[in-house]
């Protein structure tokens, strides 16, 4: 087993051994998120989880979500009507999670993080996850944490062609290469020569949907057809590097209605998304003490809703005239961030930075064509008074063209090397979430809605305390074992929710009203022994119960401050080195999710406990090298055959009900894939 030198420092969770054919892919225990420069994960003041490229490959994932689904503290919620999935990190929903592509924030149209499923997994080298606020350097939304997608970049002089074909069933539904099932095909070209590097990629990701409990044309999971393209061009010299990258997405989520046998017509909807993510980044090492980084991004996100009525009697299709049936929503974002890294002395390093962001939007439920500009300056320093101590204070100041931005966002992160094998990290941070465009400028009036945005909103903010202890148990021979214990407490204030407009109670609007808290801890073990890698983790995360402080109810129905959900995950991979094969299992248990809710029972309104059922998720996958160029992988996903989760919420039958079974998955699926890789140095 070939282990890279840096691994000796011990990586937390996902450092894995590289396979022979993967040597070109860069070191896996190096992290960049929130760092002044690439740095070993152990030296970082942030606790960072990395999902390596090998892990991505072993999972046989066709999108980023398919890699994240067995991570502790990550949970998905599916919007069956729109065919979208949101991510939840450490008990907080997607709008409090910042999604980055090589450190550049990705635009999303609302609170749901569509961007995670709209980036090509085949171009992602690794994923870095940081829990806890990173608002000093990354600004808004980074309250619960950050998910940073790091793209593949060629190194050294080489030409490489990679291709992938993967066929997957959706539950028991499958048709070869088109229609039912999941079909992923990808082709990429990497070239680098004398400092120049370029790559281009093209991927089709075709999800045929899942019929589930519906009949005829209607499907419980909407079919989704994605075409993804990417290109990159860069140049690196001794002390500087610059590159441009474009990611393109064309997505069609279709929702076909069943044929109405009363009129032999059906209503069909298509949600059509175009997304261009342009970015240019540069790094310049002026001298040993001073370096600069810059990132410029222009993103255009367009989503069209198209509703047609298909008449099967005369075989015609007409556009529906209903309100909201045809809509184009546009979002574009200009983003610029630059930082300088200056080594004041061997013990002190500083990073000042500037960020400018301009968001514009238009669409049917957006009033006008609003534009928001945000300007921020931030500075942080890493102070190492003694070798075993690293203290990083930071502060960010923002000015916003529309809302009242929080004047200052401070944070302090620390790392203490207690001894050769043990690290302690403690941090306090403020996080904030700027009011989103829809909260400022929403406009929706019809028979049963009168909702208007509120341009007077303030930012949501949080106080967070995080701590973690990592212990690399001194190993014997080929055995390496690491334990990490961590805990967090977050208090969120000024949370934006829908309420009544004080000046006109007939209109609902967004107001800063709610508080929320999350707390919890994790215990993670990782083990490396010869060809075996294994990890086992537990987490216990509590989410605030709003009735505990509600004076209307807490006397009659006393309820606890938090509702808790346990999680367990376990991963195991065995490499059969001589055969060029590996066998892996990925498992996660997500405990029951309790929620207190109001219910009307026997003509009285009471507080009662509802629960979304626990579930087990597991994948078993295998890879086998066929020859120098080809390898095959296959396996079973969702081994426990989960589809809907039982939900005891009684909130059924009213507007925007949360009752009824929760759609989580689509049953046990099987996949088989072929990877091709050809390189020439």
């Amino acid at each position, binding site marked *: 087993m070939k282990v890279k030198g840096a691994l000796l420092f011990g990586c937390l969770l996902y450092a894995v051994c590289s396979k022979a054919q993967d040597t070109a892919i860069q070191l896996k225990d190096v992290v960049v998120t929130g760092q002044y420069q690439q740095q070993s994960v152990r030296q970082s003041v942030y606790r960072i989880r990395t999902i390596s490229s090998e892990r991505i490959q072993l999972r046989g994932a066709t999108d980023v979500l398919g890699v994240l689904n067995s991570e502790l503290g990550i949970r998905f919620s599916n919007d069956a009507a729109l065919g979208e999935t949101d991510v939840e990190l450490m008990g907080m929903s997607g709008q409090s999670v910042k999604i980055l592509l090589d450190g550049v924030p990705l635009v999303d149209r609302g609170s749901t993080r569509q961007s995670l499923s709209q980036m090509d997994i085949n171009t992602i080298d690794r994923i870095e996850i940081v829990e806890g606020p990173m608002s000093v350097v990354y600004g808004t939304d980074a309250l619960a944490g950050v998910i940073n997608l790091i793209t593949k970049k060629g190194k050294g002089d080489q030409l490489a062609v990679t291709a992938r074909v993967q066929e997957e069933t959706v539950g028991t539904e499958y048709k070869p290469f088109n229609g039912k099932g999941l079909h992923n095909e990808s082709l990429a070209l990497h070239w680098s020569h004398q400092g120049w590097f370029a790559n281009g990629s093209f991927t089709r990701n075709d999800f045929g949907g899942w019929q589930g409990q519906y009949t*005829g*044309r209607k499907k419980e999971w909407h079919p989704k057809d994605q075409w993804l393209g990417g290109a990159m061009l860069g140049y690196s010299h001794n002390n500087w590097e610059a590159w441009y990258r474009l990611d393109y997405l064309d997505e069609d989520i279709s929702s076909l209605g069943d044929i109405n*046998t*009363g009129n032999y*017509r059906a209503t069909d909807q298509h949600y059509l998304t175009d997304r261009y993510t342009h970015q240019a980044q540069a790094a310049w090492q002026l001298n040993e003490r001073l370096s600069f980084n810059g990132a410029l991004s222009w993103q255009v996100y367009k989503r069209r809703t198209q509703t047609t009525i298909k008449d099967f009697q005369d*075989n015609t299709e007409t556009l529906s*005239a209903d309100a909201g049936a045809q809509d184009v929503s546009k979002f574009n974002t200009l983003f610029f961030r630059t930082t300088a890294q200056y080594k004041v002395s061997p013990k002190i390093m500083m990073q000042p930075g500037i960020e400018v962001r301009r968001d514009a939007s238009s669409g049917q439920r957006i009033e006008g064509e609003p534009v928001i500009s945000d300007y921020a300056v931030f500075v942080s320093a890493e102070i190492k008074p003694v070798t075993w101590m690293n203290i990083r204070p930071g502060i960010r100041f923002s000015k916003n063209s529309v809302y009242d931005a929080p004047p200052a966002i401070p944070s302090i992160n620390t790392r203490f090397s207690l001894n050769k094998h043990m690290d302690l990290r403690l941090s306090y941070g403020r996080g904030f979430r700027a009011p989103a465009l829809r909260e400022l400028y929403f406009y929706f009036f019809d028979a049963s809605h009168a909702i208007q945005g509120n341009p007077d909103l303030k930012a949501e903010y949080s106080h967070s305390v995080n701590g973690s202890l990592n212990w690399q148990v001194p190993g014997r021979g080929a055995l390496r074992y690491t334990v990490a214990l961590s805990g967090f407490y977050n208090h969120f204030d000024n949370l934006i929710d829908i309420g009544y407009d004080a000046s*006109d109670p007939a209109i609902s609007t967004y107001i800063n009203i709610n508080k929320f808290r999350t707390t919890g801890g994790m215990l993670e073990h990782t083990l490396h022994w010869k060809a075996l890698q294994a990890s086992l983790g537990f987490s216990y995360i509590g989410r605030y119960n709003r009735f505990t402080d509600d004076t209307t109810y807490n006397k009659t129905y006393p309820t606890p401050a938090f509702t808790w959900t346990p999680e367990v995950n376990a991963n195991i991979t065995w490499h059969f080195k001589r055969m060029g094969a590996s066998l892996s299992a990925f498992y996660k248990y997500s405990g029951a999710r309790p929620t207190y809710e109001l219910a*009307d029972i026997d*003509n009285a309104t009471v507080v009662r406990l509802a629960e979304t059922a626990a579930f087990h998720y597991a994948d078993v996958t295998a890879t086998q090298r066929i020859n120098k160029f080809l390898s095959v992988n296959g396996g079973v996903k969702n081994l426990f055959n989960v589809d809907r989760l039982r939900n005891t919420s009684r909130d059924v039958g009213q507007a925007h009900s949360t009752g009824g079974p929760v759609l989580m998955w689509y049953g046990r699926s099987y996949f088989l894939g072929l990877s091709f890789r050809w390189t020439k140095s």
Partner: protein
Amino acid sequence: MYTNTYQQTTLKRMRTLFLSLAVAGVFSACSDDDDVTPVIPPSEGSQMELDGGGGTGAPNSVYVDFSADKQTAVPRVSWNLGFYTGSDYRVILNYTSATSAVALEKTDITQVSLDDTAGVSLALGQGQGTMDMVDDVYGDLAKTVIAAVSATDADNKVYLVKPETASASDPATWYKVKISRNGNGYRLQYALLPATTIQTADISKDADYNFTFYSLETNQVVAVEPEKTAWDIQWSYGVYFAGGGSAVIPYLFSDFVYTNTLAGVQAAEATEEDGFSYDAFTIADVTDARLVYSAQRDAIGSKWRVTSGGTVGIRTDRFYVVKDPAGNYYALKFISAGIGQDGGQRGYPEIEYKLVK
């Protein structure tokens, strides 16, 4: 007295759903592989697309007379008050709009001004409002906001009335209203709340109709309902309630179906679960004990469709048996309403009905 300005549309679409094999062949040739080729059975049913005017808050109320195959569409906010033509002296608020009202202690309309709105909210809808600011949602004329008009005029209070078109936050757009008896009819006195000039209208009872309708906004009697024996159901956006237990609030429903209870119309829900089938339903079934006829105007109401929570759309597992003013039984089913993916347009519902024989 009737101005007859309302629009009467007769849109009768008799569809003979008979398709030749050739047409069926076209379907299968053109359908994509996931589409099930529909098998369209021959039917003798009558279908009607109601002219609601479109949208969730459709501008029209539509009255349907099954026996005459006739629909009558009326702008639903064209009136504010309805004066009962029966022996009682009762006045209803426009239940097909967000109209709310409250009684004042005063009985002299000239003494009522904006000062009388202190502490009064007439906001209705969007979670606002209370059940006492709208008439009985089941149509009981004994439970109207406006009390029975007394022969003793000193007992008749002044009411504040907020039409849907007025602003809840601006009482200057509300009306003050005082109603008295006038012989066999009514005398209506009213004005915008800040106004000092009081308008007066004398309203008579016409026994051919359930109500005489009056618009405070256009100062005239308006034609709304067809003659009382000439309609069976009314489809409209209108007031009902939401919530349960102690938290019942008025709620405005789209696609609400009211029955003409004052003319004796009754309706019962027939479900597949109880073994009923629209196609196989015969006159022998109308007395089946599993059919529970209701004489309340929400007998059909919103029960025929689901708009949120779970699978939205028309509940295709049920139909309604409607007994019309002449004693005929009709079986009524809803085809589309633009809810879910039923191939229809919101505000233009399609219904199908047949005389039960």
